[in-house]
């Protein structure tokens, strides 16, 4: 159902799995004890740095199951040739379809080294095409905590570009990695808005392993 690979001008997204990212290599990026930047990278997400390699393994297995069952799409992000850190595991990005509601929620986590390059917007452009053109959903949503100014700016920018809008500020909408309630800002783009803004064109290529 979900593409196994999504290629944009500067990024290669590969369906996250143990084959694509070795669990122990990924642990180096996810672990509180191994990465100097993970605390900062997870300040505004709903999960915490991994405590053991087993957590990383289970995270990858969960990603494989979500891909197989078409319940949650999550990709490993690799900058392409010509980019600084080309071929490195730069983070994860996904969309979670709610089929009965005909919508999908975007999410992304990038290592600090790769912040500020506009990768979030480039990935979003490809995901809009995936959810509207490939999966026939009607609304794409993105959320960020209001204190997360960089993400808010990035989301504001790409939802503007694709004709969408901010939908509101929702108090105590989620729970942070530390267990405390957190407010959330929400944005959306509808299929009509995306079609008006793009004419249905996009610069992304979708690939399926079985050659579908």
């Amino acid at each position, binding site marked *: 159902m979900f593409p196994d690979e999504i290629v944009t001008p500067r990024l290669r997204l590969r369906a996250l799995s143990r084959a694509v990212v070795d669990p122990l290599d990924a642990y180096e990026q996810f672990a509180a004890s191994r990465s100097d930047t993970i605390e900062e990278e997870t300040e505004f997400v709903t999960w915490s740095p991994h405590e053991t390699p087993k957590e990383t393994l289970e995270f990858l297995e969960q990603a494989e199951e979500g891909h197989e069952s078409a319940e949650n799409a999550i990709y490993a992000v690799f900058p392409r040739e010509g980019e600084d850190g080309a071929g490195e595991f730069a983070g994860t990005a996904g969309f979670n379809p*709610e089929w*009965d*509601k*005909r*919508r999908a929620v975007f999410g992304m986590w990038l290592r600090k080294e790769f912040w500020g390059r506009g990768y979030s917007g480039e990935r979003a452009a490809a995901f809009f095409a995936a959810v509207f053109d490939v999966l026939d959903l*009607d*609304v794409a*949503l993105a959320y960020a905590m209001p204190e997360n100014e960089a993400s808010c700016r990035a989301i504001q920018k790409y939802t503007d570009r694709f004709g969408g809008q*901010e*939908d*509101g*500020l*929702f*108090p*105590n*909408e*989620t*729970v942070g990695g530390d*267990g405390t*309630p957190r407010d959330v800002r*929400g944005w*959306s783009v*509808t299929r009509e808005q995306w079609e008006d803004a793009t004419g249905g064109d996009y610069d992304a290529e979708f690939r399926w392993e079985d050659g579908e």
Partner: protein
Amino acid sequence: MSDLYPAVVETPRLRLVSRRPKHVGVHEAYGLCSAPEMDDVTRYMPWSRHETPNVTKDFLDRGESSWSDAESADYAIIPREGETGAGEIAGFGGLHTEWDRRVGELGLWLRPRYWGRGYSGERAAALAALAFDVLDLEVVSVSHVAANGKSQRAIEKYMAALGGGRDGRERNSIVIDGESADELRYSVSRRDWLATSGDYDAEFRWELDPDDVR
């Protein structure tokens, strides 16, 4: 008896009695939940009028299990003496407690003959007080389907009175008759509630003799 939720909530004009088999009879509830007028009630709700008494039994059983699991305080709404239709069930409503987020979510439906009396606001004031003053929650929220103008008017009015307001629009957040629909979401924080109202005219009782429901 150590339930978190009070079995009875009394406001000036309403009595809220826990929506559990021991307090609400399945046949009485089925009578109103299966009435043709329920098509008007459920027009903007993700369910339809009850087709068999077994649906009503499940409805009351869910009231019991979410009560004992401390997930939702669900009530039958009963107008008190002096009101037209006193002693009858006017509808059902409650407070869904999202403990990890410290949020209480309001929900309500009333039979059409009880619309327009301000019962929704009276019940909301009492359940907001329950959420903040008794259950120590931080936020009370409520949503309505965007096209539901009646609920919008009632909610805008009582949310303003409680000190809250609209948070925004939730797109494609609910499925009604197989179609995805938008909802408008409102909330009030405990701080704003304390600054605006804080006082309330409601009484909470944890004990209720089943023979004394009405």
